[in-house]
């Protein structure tokens, strides 16, 4: 399920809309992840504060969105754009790939809450596909 030219256009357009509040969106998505799927807290056991409004969660969410922005800029070759992150997740972090799907879901929820009616079915479709590709790339080197 690859991205059409139209999908890529939609993802890029959405990104320019949300880029100014990328940090806030990342923080919100990660906050939702740890509340809705509490088992994901295991990956953040070194954070002093594991509430959804924790400054550490917000900072980390911002980082995650930054990486997604990188993938958007290099959307024609997400594998190359996220190559280092792919290695990090495979050899160091060893985040179970199922969690990429969970975060993709909470990110779509955040985008929907943030964009309202602008988060049309076509925008939802394009981002669902794009985040699935990001998830695949991140787990590419696991085995």
């Amino acid at each position, binding site marked *: 399920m690859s991205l059409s030219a139209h999908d890529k256009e939609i993802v890029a357009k959405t990104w320019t809309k949300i880029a100014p509040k990328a940090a806030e969106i990342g923080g919100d998505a990660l906050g939702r992840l740890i509340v809705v799927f509490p088992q994901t807290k295991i990956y953040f056991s070194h954070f002093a504060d594991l509430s959804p409004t924790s400054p550490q969660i917000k900072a980390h969410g911002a980082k995650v969105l930054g990486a997604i922005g990188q993938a958007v800029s290099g959307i024609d070759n997400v594998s190359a754009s996220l190559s280092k992150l792919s290695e990090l997740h495979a050899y160091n972090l060893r985040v179970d790939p199922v969690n990429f799907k969970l975060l993709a879901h909470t990110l779509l*929820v955040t985008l929907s809450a943030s964009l309202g009616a602008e988060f049309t079915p*076509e925008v*939802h479709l394009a981002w669902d596909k794009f985040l699935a590709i990001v998830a695949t790339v991140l787990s590419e080197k696991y085995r």
Partner: protein
Amino acid sequence: MVHWTEEERCTISTLWDKIDTEEVGHQALTRSHLVVYPWTQRYFSTFGNLSKPAAIAGNPKVRAHGKRVIVALGDAIKNLDNVKATYAKLSELHSEKLHVDPENFRLLGEALIIVLAGQFGAAFTPAVQATWQKLLSVVISALSSKYH
């Protein structure tokens, strides 16, 4: 039996009272389900024109069905302490007659959460989302209970 706190019951009913069943059902089914997961159209072959997002959005059978699904969700909400029994017949229907793969319940559930987020914005907090995802997982479990 599923345990619900007073807070969870309150969260569910507060949001439920604000939901337009027809509109939310329509959005969840069309916007998020038939468009984002187009292979699910296979279950709606008698519904007529589903060729494009605009066709899906304007299709009266789709609208009617979306409403039906959310009205059924209302039944679960009225019977929070006994969703499994409430859905016994529906579960049999989906398994024996409709042959719907239970994965689709999960997909529609996710779509519904996204529609609710779009409608309620910041008021759809992580805690509210968690409660509604719990509700949907109970519903999905009940719907899947009669599958062999």
